[in-house]
């Protein structure tokens, strides 16, 4: 039951899981607002805090200014496939991510509905149904990606080889940041 640190990673893995088991995989999003007064969680948290603070100062203190208590609400996405038992999770407490995450849910819903990805080329639906088409299309995408990456890598380098040029690019970027 892995928790992914980034939503991109969660999206990628979920997308693959849905492609593998589109009939059974489901996505559950849970939006929770934590009750600071009576929930079990907060009691546990307060105990933890009390322990931590008592080790530092030797006294019990109130749980007001701690980062743990400042988390009021969470938004958790879970992709679960009962057949394989796979459970992929991502959790955030940032409001800014909601729009992006629901966008991800929409793209995953397209995969669930057996629609082609919005980002990929539209030759897919014509070929779908043969079963052989998917790997060839994926291969094509990879090739395209590879060429674009190579193109972007080569731009600042010129005639140099790929590996050496990449290093130079990195150095230049670092200088720019300073």
């Amino acid at each position, binding site marked *: 039951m892995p928790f992914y640190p980034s939503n991109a990673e969660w999206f990628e893995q979920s997308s693959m899981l849905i492609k593998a088991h*589109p009939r059974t995989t*489901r*996505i559950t999003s*849970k939006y929770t607002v934590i009750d600071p007064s009576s929930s079990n969680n907060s009691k546990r948290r307060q105990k933890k805090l009390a322990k931590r603070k008592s080790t530092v100062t030797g006294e019990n203190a109130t749980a007001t200014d701690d980062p743990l208590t400042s988390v009021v609400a969470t938004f958790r996405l879970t992709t679960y496939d009962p057949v394989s038992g796979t459970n992929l999770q991502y959790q955030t407490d940032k409001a800014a991510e909601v729009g992006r995450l629901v966008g991800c*849910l929409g793209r995953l*819903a397209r995969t669930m509905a057996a629609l082609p990805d919005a980002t990929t080329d539209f030759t897919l639906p014509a070929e779908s*149904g043969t079963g052989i088409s998917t790997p060839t299309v994926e291969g094509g995408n990879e090739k395209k990606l590879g060429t674009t990456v190579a193109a972007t890598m080569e731009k600042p380098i010129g005639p140099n080889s790929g590996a050496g040029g990449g290093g130079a690019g990195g150095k230049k*970027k670092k200088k720019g940041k300073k």
Partner: protein
Amino acid sequence: MAKMVENHLSNDEFFAQLPKLFDANGEKGHGSIYLHQKRYIHSTDADTPSTTKQLDDPLWDTHPEHPLPIVIRAMNSKSDKWDGPNRPGVMDRKESKKVKISTMVQPDQLDVFYARYAEVCKMSMTALKKRDRKKRKQKKRKAGEGEKKG
């Protein structure tokens, strides 16, 4: 109550009900909202191939002949296991009811539906942390300069 789930709302009705579900949660000041999505499967399915065909092609469900609808379900977190005479806040829990709403989204409606869905979620999930704009802007500036020079 469980059978009520099968009566799907229309997409418009669903969007009318969903904010109410979030509002009820907000009034209480805490609690959870669950949102599910999965492929719609008929119980007597014309799309399901015969068993011999399934054996021939074990991955038959990965490439159906035509796109399938998606079921979206939303519910609150009313749970019976917490009901007891001595629990704090038990009146609150007894008064609230388990609410389940669901809708079926046709494949051609998915993009429109999710655009509205995102709006409703953004409006309703107000307890999440707001973005710290100052730090982001500084980071973006630095990154932008780095790219130009590189």
